[in-house]
């Protein structure tokens, strides 16, 4: 099937070359990082995680969100998702691979990564995260490929695929729950020490993921003529709307708990992120931008007429993705480290090398997605 990715027009190849170029730059930067150590990043003793772990967190959400198309289609036999389900699954595959790469990029000794499996440690949440992420990757590759392969031959998908797909549904929830547990169980990091972290992760994932999916379907339609169907997109837009409502509701809960209780530790990180603390507030404009654009997009989504117009929908989806990317992919991780356990405020600025590695990993993911979708569209349109 993969040979279908080798046939394409000029713009397809141009896109591939462009991605390869960014990947090459990323690989070069990563080589520099391997050579000198993580000191080439902006991370330090106080803010000891940065964009890598933040991207990881955001992308686990994107991966998990495939369940929003898989569940209605396979469990409720919602036919309108017939064409889009494979897009969702392949997006999950690409996102999961990016997650794994971001974890590797963040490690001080990536050559020892197998130690996680050689010395399995159930009381560590990382152990569970590695397990569920890899499992999820397998489940999605297997089910996506098997269903597509059967479709190509024009035969029904093999019987064993169904249970695999059913298993992937709770599994998707688990990957993002366990990811939240990575942070939520740490004493002394008040921003993360909240029971709504996992629910918030899921809500933001089910908003940002399907919003991204809508954007991908528009790109597919534009570039390949593959149309996922108006009904599918409308349904996805409704999912995005509800999930975004829940997401912003939960963010509001965090504010209420912190500021009404007035406990300094609980307020500090939020104060730092949204208002600045002791004169330092590098992320303040980012966070307000995230809030404004997120809530603005939500308003657009809440009006059925706007939601049904593709221009407004595209704008709103872009807004939701950007808003949640900032909230989760920037604010949440960095905010957890400020103030430090000794109540010092240390700010973090990613370096060029770090940004280049980050872009490189994104490019690898988008490259994979391009190839996978190329194959999928070729099979679906039988050319």
């Amino acid at each position, binding site marked *: 099937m993969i040979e279908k990715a080798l046939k394409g027009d000029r713009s397809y190849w141009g896109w591939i070359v462009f991605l390869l170029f960014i990947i090459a730059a990323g690989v070069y930067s990563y080589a520099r990082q391997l050579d000198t150590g*993580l000191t080439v990043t902006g991370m330090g003793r106080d803010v000891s995680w940065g964009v890598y772990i933040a991207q990881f967190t955001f992308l686990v959400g994107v991966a998990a969100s495939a369940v929003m198309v898989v569940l209605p289609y396979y469990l409720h036999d919602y036919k309108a998702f017939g064409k889009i389900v494979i897009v969702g699954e392949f997006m999950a595959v690409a996102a999961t691979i990016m997650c794994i790469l971001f974890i590797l990029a*963040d490690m001080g*000794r990536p050559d*020892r990564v197998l130690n996680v499996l050689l010395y399995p440690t159930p009381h*560590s949440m990382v152990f569970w995260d590695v397990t569920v992420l890899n499992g999820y990757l397998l489940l999605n590759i297997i089910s996506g490929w098997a269903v597509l392969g059967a479709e190509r031959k024009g035969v029904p998908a093999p019987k064993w695929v169904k249970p695999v797909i059913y298993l992937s549904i709770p599994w998707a929830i688990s990957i993002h729950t366990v990811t939240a547990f990575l942070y939520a169980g740490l004493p002394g990091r008040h921003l993360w020490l909240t029971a709504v972290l996992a629910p918030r992760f899921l809500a933001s994932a089910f908003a940002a993921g399907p919003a991204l999916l809508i954007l991908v379907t528009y790109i597919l339609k534009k570039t390949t003529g593959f149309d996922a169907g108006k009904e599918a997109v409308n349904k996805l837009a409704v999912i995005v709307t509800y999930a975004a409502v829940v997401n912003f509701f939960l963010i509001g809960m965090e504010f209420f708990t912190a500021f009404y209780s007035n406990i300094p530790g609980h307020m500090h990180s939020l104060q730092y992120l949204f208002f600045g603390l002791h004169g330092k507030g590098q992320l303040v404009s980012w966070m307000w931008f995230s809030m404004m654009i997120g809530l603005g997009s939500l308003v657009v989504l809440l009006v059925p007429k706007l939601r049904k117009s593709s221009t407004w929908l595209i704008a709103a989806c872009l807004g939701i993705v950007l808003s949640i990317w900032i909230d989760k992919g920037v604010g949440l991780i960095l905010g957890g480290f400020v103030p*430090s*356990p000794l109540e010092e405020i240390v700010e973090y600025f990613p370096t060029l090398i770090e940004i280049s590695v980050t872009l490189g990993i994104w490019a690898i993911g988008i490259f994979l997605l391009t190839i996978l979708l190329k194959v999928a569209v070729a099979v679906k349109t039988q050319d």
Partner: protein
Amino acid sequence: MDEQRREFIRKTGLGVLAGLGAVSGLFPESSMESAVASTSSGDSASGKTRWGMVIDTRKCRGECTRCIDACHEVHNVPKFDNAKDEIKWIWKSPFENVFPGESKQFVSEETREKSYLALCNHCDNPPCVRACPTQATFKRRWDGIVAMDYHRCIGCRFCMAACPYGARSFNWRDPRPAIKKMDPSYPTRERGVVEKCNFCSERLARNMQPACVEACPEGALTFGDLNDEQSEIRVLLDRNHTLQRKSELGTRPSVFYII
């Protein structure tokens, strides 16, 4: 709802509760009771050693750094000039940084101006150990020291996020060029792994006191077995009111402060 169903629900409910009870009985580590006790009281059992330290801050002179220098020298701790790459096992910080939860109003001038020693607390209930995915950070069963295996550490820095005391440092770059005087009796670390105070386990094995304790000219640091009622450290703890850093987090630090 009819009687039968109600009865069924009652019974299954009881069954689940009984099950949970049995589980927590079988695995004392997981029982709810121990979780509650560990946050506040519940001094450790005797029999095993639990190394601990009392820092008498009344005796500690503000500008003195003898203990810090001694520690960093015998453990080949590198010295970098920037805060980002910094590695430290023991250091001094102001009261409000070392004890952020303690009272902040009308603090005496002396307390406000003095700096206080901070180091790994060798917690009895260490969150860093819980978080580490490879057991590269582990608690020694026989003496309570929270130790590290530099050869196993993958550098994921989960322990750094988990430690509520900022006690851990990461080797962001090769430490060796930044070591002033190499001490061949203790291994240097490689780039990419985490390190922290080890309560001088290498010296304890040779029946020596920790380097910081030995170096202090004022006798402000007392080291000993917290589980031994006769020990000097226990006598000090009996006679003085002491503080543990962020004791409300239930980590049960083994380092105590007389303020």
